[in-house]
């Protein structure tokens, strides 16, 4: 089906089901209960899950397949956001042209940067991409203010031309939409104590993420993907066979830049503003964290990693000491205080500490990320099962 193997179809179907049912799955706790703050099923966060999922999928095509570690990938995300917002300002509030322009611009940008950076490999490549991204950030922040809005960021204004839509009526800045469907529109479904929110923006982004995911599977399974793996495993030998590695690496770089631009365009479509801080090197570091945490070179890993980090950023960071005290209220007083003081540094404002520790543990013990962890656990269970099966077969003759 879709030109995919059986396993890949299953994976794609599982991911489709998960993303489509996300508003239910991420809202397991009833409204108003003590656990309700762990609900991640609100549109803003779900959109971030899928958008950063796209970003990480794209990064993984470069890093996971070719092994080139780019430390400046956020630049493409930023360029994509700016391009999309400009499209909203000049042409129309429809998201399609905005996203197309975002992808095209960041693709071009990636072509230029990739052409220069890919002359070097290893850590030099990382430093070059970092340097380009920091330059873009610094320029967007200072000299390019007429294009980028500088410190305040690029925002929509009432007097933007918007050739296709005409001037805004009623003094309200219009919201991005898709042929009449507004991105920030949502409906709520109330079932007993549970409230589920279905947002158009989320489903639109989720649909695009599924497309992006499908594309990534195709790339992974294609001869082109094989070439990229060859670059990672042995560049020299690839050259000896008469193949020039650089065009392939450049293609991978551009594709992954376009993915980042797509993510940036979507981000601007959900919330039409763009700022230079999206290009800062910490943002590039974040996508590296996501990919490694989930599992480099695996299909589903980057999406998992993106979801996990965004979940922690939004949910774990909200836990404060009062909440901790209510959780551990069942313990005797002294013990309660002790437990709370032990846990407190790792949640709330300190969630970065948890993130850093988790990241280190993953790099040290699970170089394949969470996916490898999952596989290990699955293997453990399978072995147990086969052991059980063996035991049962052994025990039957005895009777």
């Amino acid at each position, binding site marked *: 089906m879709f030109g995919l193997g059986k396993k890949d179809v299953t994976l794609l179907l599982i991911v489709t089901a998960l993303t489509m049912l996300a508003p239910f799955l991420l809202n397991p706790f009833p409204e108003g209960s003590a656990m309700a703050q762990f609900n991640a099923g609100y549109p803003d966060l779900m959109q971030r899950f899928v958008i950063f999922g796209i970003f990480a999928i794209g990064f993984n095509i470069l890093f996971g397949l070719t*092994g080139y*570690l780019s430390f400046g990938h956020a630049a493409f995300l930023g360029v994509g956001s700016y391009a999309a917002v400009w499209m909203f300002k000049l042409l129309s509030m429809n998201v399609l042209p905005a996203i197309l322009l975002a992808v095209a611009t960041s693709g071009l940008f990636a072509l230029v940067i990739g052409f*220069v950076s890919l*002359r*070097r*490999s*290893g*850590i*030099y490549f*990382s*430093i*070059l991409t*970092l*340097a*380009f991204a*920091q*330059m873009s950030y*610094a*320029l967007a*922040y*200072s*000299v*390019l203010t007429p294009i980028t809005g500088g410190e305040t960021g690029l925002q929509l204004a009432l007097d933007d031309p918007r050739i296709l839509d005409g001037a805004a009526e009623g003094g309200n800045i219009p919201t991005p939409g898709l042929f009449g469907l507004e991105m920030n529109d949502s409906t709520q479904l109330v079932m007993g104590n549970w409230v589920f929110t279905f947002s158009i923006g989320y489903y639109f982004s989720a649909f695009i993420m599924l497309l992006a995911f499908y594309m990534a599977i195709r790339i992974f399974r294609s001869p082109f993907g094989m070439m990229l793996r060859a670059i990672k495993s042995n*560049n020299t030998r690839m050259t000896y066979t008469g193949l020039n590695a650089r065009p392939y690496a450049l293609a991978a770089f551009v594709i992954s830049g376009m993915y980042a631009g797509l993510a940036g365009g979507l981000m601007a479509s959900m919330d039409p503003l763009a700022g230079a801080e999206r290009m800062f*090197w*910490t943002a590039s*570091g974040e996508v*590296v964290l996501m990919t*490694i945490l989930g599992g480099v070179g695996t299909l589903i890993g980057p999406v998992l990693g993106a979801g996990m980090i965004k979940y922690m950023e939004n949910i774990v960071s909200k836990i404060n000491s009062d909440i901790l005290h209510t959780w551990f209220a069942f313990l005797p007083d002294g013990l309660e205080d002790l437990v709370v003081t032990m846990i407190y*540094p790792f949640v709330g404002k*300190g969630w*970065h*500490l948890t*993130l*850093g*520790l988790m*990241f*280190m543990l993953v*790099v*040290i013990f699970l*170089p394949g990320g969470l996916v490898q962890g999952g596989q290990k656990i699955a293997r453990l269970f399978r072995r147990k099962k086969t052991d059980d099966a063996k035991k049962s077969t052994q025990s039957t003759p005895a009777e």
Partner: protein
Amino acid sequence: MDAIILQILNGLDKGSAYALIALGLTLIFGTLGVVNFAHGALFMIGAFCAVTLSRILNVSFETVDPTKTDFLGNPAKIKTTYIEHWLGPDLGGSILDWGVPLAILFAIPIMIAVGVLMERGLIKHFYKRPHADQILVTFGLAIVLQEIIKYFYGANPIPTPAPDVFRGSFDFGTLIGYEANQIIYPYWRLVYFAFAAMIIGAVFAFLQFTTFGMVVRAGMADRETVQLLGINIDKRFTIMFGIAAAVAGLAGVMYVPINPPNYHMGMDFLVLSFVVVVVGGMGSLPGAVFAGFLLGILESFASMGVIIDLLPGINQIIIYLVAIIILLTRPRGLMGRKGVMED
């Protein structure tokens, strides 16, 4: 002309910091072959050693002075630090005043311990893993160290002043025949530059003129042969890691009066220091020092008004621009050795 001299001077202090951090990075890279992304965190820990020492020195007790009243009419409470109480206001006061330079003594053992612990505890296990893994694990470590410091010291910069003697500015212009107040330069920055030059000199002398340094240099050139000669090179490399950490830490200690330390200062410097190392040439110690000063001075030249008018925004990107040009024209960096990190 005076503007040019001023810019060179301005570039020196930042250049010194870059050079010191890059020197440590190169030492680690040259000896152990590890790309240490946590090196900026070591710089930051050094800075916070100075903060910690000044907090320890300022531990005080309160006494009530019945002769004076505060603005509410209550008897005034006077804070006296234990140092002044024990050693008298003169000696105690000057110890308080010289808190930052004293922190050097305080920081050296701490930094060496942190460095050795880091190498033995974590980085040792990463020698055989790819460079990408080393970058990633030290990046994670940097986040962890940063967050620990943030937990204890908060997110805001902590101003810690230099000793009174160095607080003013030095009229450099009068020395070389300019009129007064044309080229003025804060004393502490001069101190910082002199200090950096001293440390750099000490590290080079240590490597060049001691037996230990000779063995380390031999190990950098050919680790296996040195091991075959029956020398425990790993132990020496661990000590070098400690020394590199101490160099970064001291750079941090002395930088405190120039820029109040906050928890992410390390990361800010790290990115630039990596650029410096790459420009200087991976694995080349003189290259790292030279590139550090070069980029520091270039950066301050680029922020001159005339040049900004000519090329707007150049001050923001000059370092990265230079790095890109050098990497593309001289792939090994300015003084890179053949065969280092060439894959």
